[in-house]
């Protein structure tokens, strides 16, 4: 994406600025060397880098294969979640769990569903893990 020949007026200015920037950086680095030797290296950690490309003939089949695998996983998960969603849970049970055990609503509901809506089992599951 590096553009070398854009509009003339901008170019002149930008280059001048770039020099300024680099000079400033030089100064900064000099200042830093005394206390923080590694700071300059750390700064470079967040630098931008171009991605490397590979050229391979047989990857398209792999892509497809992994895609299928993922779809399978997802459908499994969706089925599991559906199963859990089918469980009838009472709002007051969720609130009881939240209040007695100081847990989040999400967790209370999840445990309650996993225990098929049995509030005693849910309470026990949380205190005995």
């Amino acid at each position: 994406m590096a553009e070398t020949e854009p509009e003339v007026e901008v170019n002149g200015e930008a280059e001048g600025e770039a020099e300024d920037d680099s000079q400033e950086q030089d100064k900064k680095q000099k200042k830093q060397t005394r206390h923080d030797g590694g700071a300059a290296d750390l700064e470079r950690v967040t630098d931008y880098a171009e991605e490397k490309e590979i050229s391979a003939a047989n990857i398209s089949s792999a892509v497809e294969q992994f895609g299928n695998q993922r779809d399978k996983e997802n459908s499994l998960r969706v089925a599991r979640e559906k199963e859990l969603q089918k469980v009838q849970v009472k709002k007051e049970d969720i609130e009881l769990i939240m209040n007695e055990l100081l847990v989040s609503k999400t967790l209370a509901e999840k445990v309650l569903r996993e225990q098929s809506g049995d509030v005693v089992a849910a309470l026990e599951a949380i205190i005995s893990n």
Partner: protein
Amino acid sequence: MPSSDPLPPKEGALFRKLLKCYEMKQYKNGLKLAKQILSNPKYAEHGETLAMKGLTLNGLGRREEAYKYVRLGLRRDLRSHVCWHVYGLLQRSDKKYDEAIKCYRNALKWEKDNLQILKDLSLLQIQMRDREGYKETRHHLFTLRPSQHASWIGFAMSYHLLGDYEMANNILETFSQSQTTIEAHDYRHSELLLYQNQILIESSHLQQALDHLLKYEAQIVDKLAVRETMGDLYIKLGQQEKAVPIFESLIRRNPENVLYYQQYMAARRVTTSGAIVSVYREFQEQYPRALCPRRLPLDIAVGDEFREVADEYLRRGLRKGIPPLFVNVRTLHQVPEKTAIIEALTLQYFENLTRSGHFSREDADAEVPLEPASALVWTALFLAQHYDYMRDTDRALEYINAAIDHTPTLIELLITKGRIFKHAGDPVEAYVWLEEAQSMDTADRYINSKCAKYMLRANMVLEAEEICAKFTREGVSAMDNLNEMQCMWFQTECALAYERMGRWGEALKKCHEVDRHFAEIIEDQFDFHTYCMRKMTLRAYVGLLRLEDVLRRHPFYFKAAKCAIEVYIRLYDKPLASETTIEEIDIENLPPSELKKLRSKQRKAKKKAELESAQAAQAQVKREQHQKSKQQANQETDPDAPQLDELIPEKLERTDEPLEKAIDFLKPLQELAKERIETHLLAFEVYYRKNKLLLMLQSIRRARALDASHPVLHSCIIRFMKALESAKQEQPFNVHVQQVLDKATKELIGKKTPQQLNDEFIAKYHTTSILHLYEAARGLYELDASKKQAAIKLITDFNLSKLRLEEATKIYTALRDGDVFGDCEKEAEQYKLKCQERFQYARIFRNIEELEAQLQEKEAAKLRAEEEQQQLNHLDSNETSASVVGGGEPASVAAAS
């Protein structure tokens, strides 16, 4: 990227340059470009340009303007993925990760296949450990760009982190097969291979891992990792004979790696202690300079063989004068038999060195050359440390004094003397010795830090800060600099000192500072998500992620969190009066003696308050200065640092919800430090005060699973039963809760009443364990307040000679403070006198008056010394000024003429 509000070619080119400038961190250029676009009246309100201008400003640290422009840009163009993306990036740099994720999702709504946005989203997901989401995003990226290296790696990694090793390995395998050209010495490729190997090992496919390693050995540049892993795999796969030469060569490479020796032994299948020791002997000959083959047999050998190897090892160390010799063998003291042998050996050395200058009589008879004179000092030091470890203060002091008489300038001796006093319960005397040691080598940072730590143990925070200031950066207050440097041992010791002094707010401040360090360390991993992927240091990266996951398991966090929880509990039990109301006490009705006490108390309090307010004023000034300097620094260096609320001690100690604050510190411990019983005991204390019976039960159960015989657990159970009883009387439980409670209590104590339980406990530990007995006495009083005297008698009658100092301190403070058994000043005083005899060095059992007199005496001595010094200086300066005057004469003469 089709834009919702496209620019004409000229401006479009400028805009692309602007993006480029941002990526290259040329923010000033970027601003100019943005200005150029916006100066065209037709595009003065172009949303995407405004947003980019804001982001660029953020890069320059101008946060407020940044928000202004980004929001403005977004408002102008709500359907632009660029604007949403930019808003997300800004939020991210402000550490508002949840918000940033929402922004990215909005951006993806308008441009669902944008690579950059997807990449940024994946970074946030891994940072927040949304592993499922990370996998989804990584898969999306993979399908979009299967031709990029990074797509494959990230995709595989997402499965690895979810624990799906099979899939992770499949992806990497396919990837490596589709790679055609591999350069020699390709570090990234080599790392990738090792990463794949790690996955295979973690999925327990050991044979596969070994085959993989053998196949690619030539392409891997990290030869050491190959050798280590291969040797390990051979052992695990039962092909020990192949591992032997590998570990032989590894030991040759580094004869000081403990693990190599252990694995070598496993490979050779030597198991009996005698055989292992003789293998170590071979290594001793082969590597005469190496320490490991000499030290390790000490762990293994027993009986006479131990005596023999210990004798050699100790003599060598004492002859050469190795200062940490005792620390090096301290772990052996866990075995009483070995302790006795070490003691006998060193006593014999001391005796013979004093008499003839040899380590033993046999040496003297054989007329071997004399040992160096310093051997005697090191032996005496060793014995002092040994007896100190055994808590035999008198003998420890005897030997250390002998050593100091011999060589008064050896710093190690003074440190040890200080440590002996510390262990004997006199932190003040201890610090005096450390200060002395410190003054003998002010350029030694170790002794400097030790000295500071001992000062903190003696509750001398200001002095400790001053000492540390010798090594902190100039121009900044030492305390701030130590915070900036995340010097956590110092801050935790400060917190504990403040806790001992009852300055709760200051203690909390230090604990919160430590907590913030941990938060910061977790923040700091952000940059590595991109960096490690790019550099392909994947093994190290996974290691980092796993470390950060459990970061707050670290002992430093545990210590600070424990302190914070204890302080918050204490603040809940005895809340502080608000700052303005001062207790009015009815003076009229007090007897004269009481009145006198009160007056002197008030005087002291006033003095203290004055001092404190002066200190506070000073601190305020310092704070302002610091704030100013920080602001300046911020502008230059770190625009990313989020502005945190300032921690103000007065506010911290007057929180409205101490228990909630305690829970904040508790949660990470419950999550990450489950294996420490203190976690659950602390949790009980919090939930007991919140009156959450089920959670009390949870804590008790967890603690019991770790150590069913822990003394404090008993008190928890008794208090739980009591709380259960009184809660029942107040109002009936919810049926479900009742059911759980019934079942659990039955499991816990069967059908016994708490009284029965407590009586049994007393009978069991009556003469064997004071800590258990103490908890039983607490239970006795808790269940029936009329049994106060019996309870106190129970613990004060316990044979004092069996007590350790920490135990006696615990009992005494409980009696003295009156929190546990109600008011019992008389009994406390009696107990103190008894303890005074048993622990003569311990400060806590001595009389305040005596201590104060001692302190005054010391201060007076110090003052005198200073005065003398000043006089000397005065004399000196007189002399010098005289000489100056003398030397100046010609000049003045010259001037006059």
